[in-house]
C-alpha cells in the first residue's frame, strides 16, 4: 500500500470543515491512541478512532467518510473524556456523520423506514429519537 501525500489534500477545505463543525483541532492529536484503547465499540469498527484522526491529518477525508466506524460510535464520550490533549473524537465523529447526512447521502447503517416494529413499540422513546437524530439526520 502506498500513499502519495498531496499538499492540496492536506489543506482540503472539507477537512477544515470537519474541524469547524467539531470544534476540534486535528493537529492537536499526537496519536497516543487512548481514544481507541477505551472505545467500547471498537470491535465493530473498520478503522479505529485514532486512525480516523490520522487519516484526516494526512488528507484522506473520503476514506474516513466511507468508513463503518463513524456509524458505529455511540457517542458515549469516553474517548473525549480521557484524551490527554483534549481532542474530542466523539465530536469529530458527529461532524463526519453530519457531513454525510446533510448531503442526503444514504446511511449504510440505518434507514428510518427500517426501524423495527419492536423498537417502535418497545424501546424507550429517547432511544428511538436519539438514533434517528444521530444516524439519520
Amino acid at each position, binding site marked *: 500500500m502506498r500513499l502519495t501525500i498531496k499538499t492540496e489534500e492536506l489543506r482540503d477545505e472539507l477537512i477544515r470543515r470537519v474541524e469547524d463543525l467539531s470544534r476540534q483541532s486535528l493537529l492537536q492529536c*499526537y*496519536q*497516543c*491512541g*487512548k*481514544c*481507541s*484503547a*477505551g*472505545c467500547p465499540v*471498537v*470491535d465493530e469498527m473498520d*478503522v*479505529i478512532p*485514532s*486512525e480516523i484522526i490520522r487519516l484526516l491529518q494526512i488528507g484522506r477525508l473520503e476514506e474516513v467518510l466511507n468508513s463503518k466506524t463513524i456509524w458505529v460510535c455511540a457517542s458515549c464520550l*469516553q474517548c473525549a473524556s*480521557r*484524551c*490527554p*490533549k*483534549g481532542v474530542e473524537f466523539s465530536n469529530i465523529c458527529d461532524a463526519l456523520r453530519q457531513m454525510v447526512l446533510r448531503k442526503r447521502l444514504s446511511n449504510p447503517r440505518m434507514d428510518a423506514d427500517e426501524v423495527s416494529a419492536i423498537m417502535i413499540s418497545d424501546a424507550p422513546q429517547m432511544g428511538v429519537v436519539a438514533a434517528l437524530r444521530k444516524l439519520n439526520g
Partner: protein
Amino acid sequence: MEERIGVFVCHCGSNIAGVVDVKRVAEELGKYPGVAYSTDYTYMCSDPGQTMVKDAIKEHNLSGVIVAACSPTLHEATFRRAGRVAGVNPYQVEIANIREQCSWVHQGDKEAATRKAIKIIKTMVEKARLDEALDPIAVPMTHKALVVGGGIAGIQAALDIANAGYETILVERGPSIGGHMAQLSETFPTLDCSQCIMTPKMVEVAQHPRVKLMTYSEIDDVSGYVGNFKVKIRKKAAYLDRDICNGCGLCMEKCPAKTTSEFDEGLAQRKAIYTPFPQAVPNKPVLDRDHCTYFLNDGKCGICKKICPVQCIDYEQEDEIVEDEVGAIVVATGYDLYPIENLGEYGGGKYPDVITSLQFERMLSASGPTEGEVKRPSDGKVPETVVFLTCCGSRDPEAHMPYCSKVCCMYLTKHAMLYKHKVHDGQAYVFYMDVRTAGKGYEEFYTRAAEEDDVLFLRGKVSKIFEEDGKVVVWGVDTLAGRKVEIEADMAVLGLATVPNAAAKDLANMLKLHTDEWGFLAEAHPKLRPVESLAPGFYLAGAAQGPKDIPEAVAQASAAASKVAHLFAEEEYHREPIIAWIDEDTCAGCRVCVSVCPYDAAEFDVEKGIARIQEAICEGCGACIAACPSASAQQRNLTDEQVYKMVSAALEG
C-alpha cells in the same frame, strides 16, 4: 565636558536586521547630539564585534557607549567588560534593547520598527549622557554554603563545595540522606546497583571534615542577601539524643508500634522508632510520635527508653532552632511521583496490583520488602505477565502535567528488563508513546531490552485498567497495528510523572525563588545560566529544577558547586552600585523611605535627623525613590533628571 557617545547597532544575524533597517538607525543616531560615533555590525557580541567597540572607544575617545542589541540580561555584562578594558567605566556602557522590545514584536511593520529602534536608542543616549562613573560595592562575605536536600544532587553539591575548601551545611528533611536514589534497585543503562554506588557517597559526605550534616531538619527562615545570608534551621525533635545514640538498634527491635514504611513506598512496615533503611546515614533512629504508643496512649509504653543502653531517649525533647550564616545556598529539594489517586482510569490506587514505579523499585531491590523477588502485593504470587505504562500523568496537558518527565521511558525499560532477569518465563509489555532514549548508552539499552529480553513494546496509551477474576486487565492500543489491545496481566507498573517535591514548593515560596507553573525551580537563563536562580546567591541542583536522571542531577550539582566556589573565590562580594542614595541637603527626615524599604536598607540617622541607605543591603528596587516626597532619594545612574530626559526623547517627534 562635551560627552562623546558611541552607538553600536547589532544585527543579531537577521533577528534585528530582518525587521529593523539597521543602516538607517546607525546613520540617524550618528546625527544625534552628543553621539561621536555610530556604526552597525552583524554580531556585536562576537569577538570581532567587541574588538570593534574597544577600538572605537580608543580611536574616537568615547566617554560612553550604547550597544543597541538584545536584552541587557544577556550581554550587558559582556559589553561592560569590553568598555572597562578599553577605558570606559562599565556603568557608562548601556544596552538599548531593540530585539525583545522591538524587532521580535514588530515583525509585521518594518518602518515602524525602525522608527521605534531609533527612539529606544535615543533614550539610552539621554541616559548615558548623565551616567556617572561607578565602582562595584565591596561587601564582606561568609565563605560557607548551605545545601538544602540530601538526595544525590545535594550530596554531590555538598561534597564538591567542601572539597573546594569551603564549609558546607547539608540539611535533609528526612531521618537519613540518600533521597530517592537510595530507594532504587539498579540504575540504567549500566545496571549498577544503586545502593552500592550511593552509600559510599553518603558516608563520604557525612564524614567530611568540612560538611556539617543536619538530618531530620528543615529550613525555617532565610534572610539577608548573597554572601551574607542568615539561616534558621529547625532540628525536628527526634525524641532521642542522636549525638549520644550509638545506633545499636535495640529500640527499633523492641518497639511494639508499626506503621507503613515511606521508604518502602507502603509495601512494608516500619517501627515507630526507626531508621528508614539499614544503610541510613546517620544510622541513628528518630521517633515518629504520630505512631508511637507512648505518645498515643498517654505514656503507656516507654519500652525504648527502658531498653536503651546509652539512655538517649528523651520524650520531652522539643524542636531546636539552629542559627547560622552562609554566603550561598544550593537548593536540591528533589521530586515526588505524581499521585496515583489522580489516575482514576487506572484505578486511582484502589487495585493492589497496580503499583507505582517506585514501589516496583523497592520490589526489585535486594534490600527491599521482597528481598528482590518480584511478587505481586495482593497475594504474593510471582506475576507471569507484567504491563509497564509510560506517561502516567506526563504529556497530558488536559488533565495532568503537560511536560515529558524524561526518565520514565528509561526506567520502565529497565524495570521490564530486570523483571525478565528475575522471572525468565515471564512476559513484559511496555506501552509507550515515544521511547525517548537521549543519553549515552540509552538507545543501546532499550534495544537490548527489546531484542534480547523479549520485552514487547506496544505503541499506544492505556485507557483503562481494572482488576477482575484475579487478573489485572489492561485496555490499551497498538497504534502501529491499528488495534485495541487487551492484556490480562498479573500486575501493572505505572510510570508516574515527576513533579516537584510537595514540601519544596513551600520552601521555594519562603525563599522567594521563581518557579515555573508546575513548581519546578526556574533557572536564571534556560541555556546559559542553567544552575543559577534569578535570585543572587541561590543555585539549583537536581530534579527540583526539572525532571532529570542521576547523571544529569550529579552534573548539575557539580556545576552548582563550581558556581558557589566561583563566588567564594573572591574575598569580598562585589555588588552592583546601581542603588539608591539620599541627598542629605534636602532630606527632611520624614522616614517614608524607611517604612517602604522591603530590605530594611533605608535607616534613620537620629543624630542628623535624616535617612540613610545602607549600601551593602540596598537592592536598588526604587521603592524609596518613588515614595520620597522631596525627591531626595535618587537611584544612581537612573536619577529623576535622567528619566525625564529619556521620556522626552521617547516622546519627541
